[in-house]
């Protein structure tokens, strides 16, 4: 309720307005994306072309699209806000919370996804564990994806309302119609092209903030000194040295939660089993490109904190009222009032307005719009694939001609978008639904990773083991969430202390430890049930499981062409960055 009140307060004001040059820049973007939809329509006649972009993308395109599918505006603005709230610790979600998992996907898991010729992650589960695991994963993924698209849509409309004073209905319908048009016409190909464009646009629109901000602050060392002075703590500028205990850092988490909860479970779950991102890599044109794409994606991902985390840190150091010279204090959304009119989540737009005048402002806003739209497009294209292949094609109409499935893909894009619009209006009327939808999404990720990784690495895992393990992990995740989110304040605190194993744990630690437990439960149940049931013959596991598969050579003829070599380079840079910002 408080959150809703804060949002209503936000809706009654606007931060800035667009000049004619900004509008030209925004219209140029819309013109290009719609043109792309019409342009590639001719190359999306078969289901493989529509749902997997013809499996002809190079490693660079698949890699950029892979990392860009996750770089939505909700994510950009949210993590810039988190950087203000928690300091440099937010960087963990871009480094340890992404890089090892992306490299693991590329080098270890991608060969199985790719040579099994699966069209989706639920499709792999069907090949490995049968219909039960596929059905559970497909329905939960389809349902959550379409809800997330609606949340994205509403978030875009709200951001445009807050920054520019645009009507919410206008933003929802124009955004949805544009995305529906270009995805319906061009399928995944259209979505991928727009994701690559969006990646370039985000850098073009947002990179000036850290550049000018660091000039204003007098360099990184001076910025750190200002943050320590303003925040009164060194906890905001160290990546690892404050993670010894929950009480020593602003996030209220310890290294166990970050390394095992975030780095080993949530991150691996998201980057290796969420079909929204894996679909991009499946579009690669050969095995080497499929292995290389996540490695390239990881290299780009390491640079993203520059445009997301640094603006949040800059706000801690230099964001002052231009009239009074006083430091502007940002607060949580439910604490916004006349004395503190800005929330953490507005830090990115505030910094954009601080440094960017007409023209550059339009570029920054276009980057945000592009991020929102490609986020919606990613969700809708993944939904239409899973719906058509793993629900409609698996349970409703198994033997239709290929053209029928392409038509179903186009229609499910439009219908999916209409459901998303309905979700957006639902969220508009009950803002707390947004939090629930985001939490719901996290329920499936950790257990799904347990199921997929055991399926790929352990020949003894059986169909019943996979299905019941996934079910048990998901149910336990939902149960823990209910346990820690409902009841009196005392009950919630006590529940959190039990889940995170410390009375000093904060809600962020809750998510990490819930993921860890649900993964362990999934793995334990899968192993126990597998030993009680009959395994599949090894001959049936060829192409699906490590040890039962002869992995074909990826075609690399020199060390420079080997994905493993570049994965080592990225890993070395990753370790160096963590030491530098220790």
């Amino acid at each position, binding site marked *: 309720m408080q959150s809703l009140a804060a949002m209503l307060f936000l809706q009654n004001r606007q931060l800035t307005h667009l000049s004619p*040059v900004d509008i030209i*820049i925004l219209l140029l973007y819309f013109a290009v994306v719609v043109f792309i939809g019409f342009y590639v329509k001719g*190359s*999306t006649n078969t289901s493989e072309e529509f749902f997997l972009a*013809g499996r002809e993308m190079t490693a660079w395109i698949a890699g950029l699209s892979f990392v860009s599918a996750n770089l939505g505006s909700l994510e950009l603005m949210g993590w810039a806000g988190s950087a203000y709230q928690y300091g440099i610790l937010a960087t963990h979600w871009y480094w340890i919370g992404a890089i090892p998992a992306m490299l693991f996907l590329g080098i270890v898991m991608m060969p199985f996804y790719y040579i099994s010729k699966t069209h989706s992650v639920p499709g792999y589960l069907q090949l490995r564990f049968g219909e039960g695991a596929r059905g559970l994963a497909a329905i939960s993924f389809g349902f959550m994806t379409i809800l997330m698209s609606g949340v994205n849509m509403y978030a875009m409309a709200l951001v445009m309302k807050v920054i520019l004073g645009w009507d919410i209905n206008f933003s929802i319908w124009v955004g949805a119609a544009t995305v529906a048009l270009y995805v319906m016409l061009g399928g995944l190909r259209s979505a991928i092209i727009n994701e690559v*464009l969006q990646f370039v646009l985000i850098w073009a629109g947002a990179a000036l903030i850290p550049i*000018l901000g660091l000039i204003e602050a007098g360099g990184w060392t001076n910025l750190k000194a200002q943050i320590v002075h303003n925040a009164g703590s060194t906890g905001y500028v160290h990546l690892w040295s404050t993670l010894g205990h929950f009480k020593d850092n602003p996030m209220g988490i310890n290294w166990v939660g970050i390394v095992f909860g975030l780095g080993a479970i949530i991150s691996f779950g998201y980057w290796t089993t969420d079909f929204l991102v894996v679909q991009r890599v499946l579009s690669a044109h050969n095995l080497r490109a499929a292995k290389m794409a996540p490695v390239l994606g990881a290299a780009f991902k390491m640079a993203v904190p520059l445009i997301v985390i640094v603006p949040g840190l800059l706000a801690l150091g230099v964001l002052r009222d231009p009239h009074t010279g006083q430091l502007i204090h940002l607060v949580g959304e439910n604490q916004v009032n006349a004395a503190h009119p800005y929330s953490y989540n507005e830090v990115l737009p505030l910094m954009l307005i601080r440094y960017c*005048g*007409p023209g*550059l402002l339009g570029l920054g806003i276009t980057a945000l719009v592009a991020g929102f739209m490609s986020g919606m497009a990613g969700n809708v294209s993944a939904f239409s694939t899973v719906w058509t292949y793993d629900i409609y094609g698996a349970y409703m109409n198994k033997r239709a001609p290929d053209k029928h499935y392409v038509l179903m893909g186009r229609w499910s894009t439009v219908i999916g978008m209409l459901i998303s619009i309905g979700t957006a209006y639902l969220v508009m009327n009950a803002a707390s639904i947004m939090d629930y939808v985001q939490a719901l999404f996290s329920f499936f990720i950790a257990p799904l990773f347990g199921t997929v990784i055991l399926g790929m690495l352990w020949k003894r895992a059986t169909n019943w083991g996979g299905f019941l393990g996934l079910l048990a992990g998901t149910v336990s995740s939902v149960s823990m969430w209910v346990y820690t989110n409902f009841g009196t304040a005392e009950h919630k605190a006590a529940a959190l202390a039990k889940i995170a194993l410390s009375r000093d744990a904060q809600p962020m630690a809750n998510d990490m430890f819930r993921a860890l437990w649900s993964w362990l439960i999934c793995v334990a149940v899968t192993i126990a049930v597998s030993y009680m049931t009959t395994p599949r013959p090894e001959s049936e596991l060829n192409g699906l499981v490590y040890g039962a598969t002869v992995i074909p050579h990826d075609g690399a003829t020199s060390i420079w062409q080997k994905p493993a070599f570049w994965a080592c380079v990225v890993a070395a840079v990753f370790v160096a960055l963590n030491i530098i910002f220790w």
Partner: protein
Amino acid sequence: MAQGTGRGESLSIWFFVGIMTLSYGIVLFPYGAWEWFSGHEPATVLHQLHPTFWWGLLLLLFGAFYTIRYRPRSGDKDIA
């Protein structure tokens, strides 16, 4: 071959990247020059560094490079 847009097409995905950033450079670079030389700088922090002008120039050069490098050539469609 036109990368990313389909086997039968001639415009590469990188051409779209180029044309889009080139368009933005064409809009921002002269606008930044007008702001600078006519004294219409916005009241933003560090406006004295003329970020619109320099950023517009950078986008112009980046976009021009990609547009020329990946421009459709005769025969691309057949090769693809």
